């Protein structure tokens, strides 16, 4: 697994990637190295097993969900472009950048970060976090000492707190509102990725 730095020219679609994701060339190169290191058999793609091979993810409650976020619906392999697209969400937000109208929302904006998180909750992609989905997430994130009844309670309360239109589920807007006080930009940014 000797990792010498890749040459920028070895990376396919480098310019488009940089434009789309906003990463600097150095970051893209670094992530490409990482991609290749994870891709043990040099397939050019990553499979779920490759990502599962990262030990720490197994002790991360949301590990598997996040792995799945890298793969499109029903697919088992992801290429570098998709890989780096996901990571682009976690680029630190540049300060003082005005949001020019007409330009597409940058991938690392607060909105995008929240959308990413929302999609982790909303497994069936119906645009809402139902009670069941909330329950599932809670189950993942909470110790086993908490019983199911407890959990149901907590899930209901959580939904109640955030639900504004009373439909018993949390839409994306409600979700965004419920976390508006949280410093999402900071909490979902990796200093490493610039």
């Amino acid at each position, binding site marked *: 697994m000797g990792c010498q730095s890749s040459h920028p020219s070895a990376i396919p679609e480098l310019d488009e990637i940089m434009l789309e994701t906003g990463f600097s060339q150095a970051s893209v190169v670094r992530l490409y190295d990482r991609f290749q290191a994870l891709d043990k058999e040099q397939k050019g793609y990553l499979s779920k097993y*490759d990502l599962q*091979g990262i*030990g*720490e993810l197994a002790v*991360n409650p949301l590990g598997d969900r*996040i792995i799945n976020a890298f793969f499109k619906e029903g697919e088992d392999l992801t290429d570098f472009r998709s890989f780096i697209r996901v990571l682009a969400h*976690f680029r630190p937000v540049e300060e003082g950048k005005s949001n020019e109208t007409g330009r597409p929302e940058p991938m690392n904006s607060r909105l995008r970060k929240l959308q990413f998180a929302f999609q982790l909750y909303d497994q069936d992609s119906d645009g809402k976090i139902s009670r069941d989905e909330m329950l599932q997430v809670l189950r993942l994130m909470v110790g086993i000492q908490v019983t199911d009844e407890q959990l149901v*309670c907590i899930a209901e*309360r959580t939904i109640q707190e955030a639900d504004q239109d009373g439909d018993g589920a949390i839409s994306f807007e409600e979700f965004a509102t419920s976390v508006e006080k*949280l410093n999402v930009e900071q909490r979902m940014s990796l200093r490493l990725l610039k």
Partner: protein
Amino acid sequence: SLILSLLFFHLSHKVTRVVPESALLIVLGLFLGGIVWAADHIASFTLTPNVFFFYLLPPIVLDAGYFMPNKLFFGNLGTILLYAVIGTVWNAATTGMSLYGVYLSGIMGQLDIGLLDFLLFGSLIAAVDPVAVLAVFEEVHVNEVLFIIVFGESLLNDAVTVVLYNVFDSFVAMGADNVTGVDCVKGIVSFFVVSLGGTFVGIVFAFLLSLVTRFTKHVRIIEPGFVFVISYLSYLTAEMLSLSAILAITFCGVCCQKYVKANICDQSSTTVRYTMKMLASGSETIIFMFLGISAVNPDIWTWNTAFILLTLVFISVYRVIGVVIQTWVLNHYRVVQLEIIDQVVMSYGGLRGAVAFALVALLDEKKVKEKNLFVSTTIIVVFFTVIFQGLTIKPLVQWLKVKKSEHREPKLNEKLHGRAFDHILSAVEDISGQIGHNYLRDKWSNFDRKILSKVLMRRSAQKSRDQILNIFHELNLKDAISYVAEGERRGSLAFIRSSSTDNMVNVDFSTPRPSTVEASVSCLLREKASSVCLDMQALEQRRKSIRDTEDTVTHHTLQQYLYKPRQEHIHLYSRHEIIQNEDEKQDKEIFHRTMRKRLESFKSTKLGINQPKKLNKSHKRDRGQKRRNSNAIPNGKIPSENPAPDFTLKEKGIDNPAFSADDDQSIYMKFPPWLTDEDSVVPSQRARVQLPYSPNNFRRLTPFRLSNKSVDSFLLADGPEERPRAFLPETTHM
């Protein structure tokens, strides 16, 4: 009185949370010294440099080296070296020169000092002291990178200090007029010789020690002895050769830890650990007390306000400046940046301690006429940094951190989602490879695996390490297969197959077994069981309370039971405790859940038909040889033996399923990820490792959340004394 005070302070944790133990000890020392002086009018004990350097310091440094988190240390080595070398030189030079400058201006009055004396003083007062740093940082929980930088700096700056001190000492002896350029050059060269030589000596002895422990299988009783003796030898040898002894013993500890821990048997390992902690802790206590006692010696007291004040001012100011400049430079090269708060902690945490005092006591009065002044100043500086800075650093840090965070009581959603964000971020960090791939590190780990480990580790230890690799390579495959096979059997009675009844299903947890590990593990089990019940009852009661309090309950439950994200786990180094990783529990739970899910999904995508037979055979073999590592796992063969076409891609994928080498030395390390938290260097030291997840156990895993027991049985059932060792690192070996 020493004993009493030791006991007293170790017991009063509440006090030590506010006041660092070192400060208390100094005060106590002062008190005692005062008593003795008042009684006899003589200064009784003083901290003689000899005693300090030969008896008190080595255990502390060895303790630091042996428990050093290597990955972190070497990962930040560049930073550490910069601070240690350049930083110390900067501090020494600026302090010395400034004092000289001030002296020239006459404020200090008439003193019999020259520039060289000032530089000499500067060099001994400049160095950050490892003992003091450790003592204080114990209480202040800073992030691991920061800790390792300050701590590493304090250890490595010894070479610089020694060289500077010796160089200036000899210059002073020669007399200012006789110093030539050649001598300066010699000084610089000697720095390299001393530091590299010291390191080399340390490494040689580490090699020796590892080699020795490889063959001590039959002399287990004295295994711990070897560790201490050989390490101390490294210290003495370096000292004898006028090299940096601290560096020698540090690197001895740092380099040997992995192999020694793998080689020596558990009881020895425990003995070594406890003894080391005991010696280090004892030494530290004695040092600080003696610092206090030695201060009560009126003969040496010379007071020169300007000098003392200015020294204090200069060392603080120049440290801050030095840190800021160096950090600014470093941040260009570092991936993980050092922020303002880090810099504050680094500047403020640059404590001086006993090393400075010992060095100043070593000065020759005839050469350095103002020795007493230096001694007094040093004492005051040390006291100031340890007591005042030690006391205030914790509030300072908290204040700084608090300034940034909000004060509102977060809402339920915020708590939950906030936590989720933290987890997401950790995961993305891991995926994007935060530390990044280091060519050197990979090279080293290859070298280590192929050559070093073969030489230095016992056969058994090597095998077990490889086994873990294989085991985990096989994990998904085998268990998924058996999971499927079980499903095919259709019937709960299938569980109780003859091969399984050997050990799994009917393990009686209550049977006491000889090994200490097992005892603690079954205690853990029982304890967990009872705590579950208690919790459930408590929870039940709470549930019956009125609606209004449901909110508080929910909050409370979430607060208590939400899994913690990674940053909160870490408490790296403790002088007085062997760290128990409480988050192991959390890790285990999550781990089991994750693996189970993965296996389920694997199963649903793959049906292995040919495998069960082979599998059973190997399982039988496995279990029969639970205790003998040598044959343990033919696992390695299974995938290669298996040409079944439907396995192709997936099988390969399984090759690196749960835990493959993600970075450096840690293929085996990575596996039980919680191992990496504490002793990241060590593979499962238990030579008698065996298949941790027997598929049969897996079957028995009823809905995992039902009770802790099932989780524990999952973990433990297959030979409690074996399995936990694979998973629970040394912490269970109490």
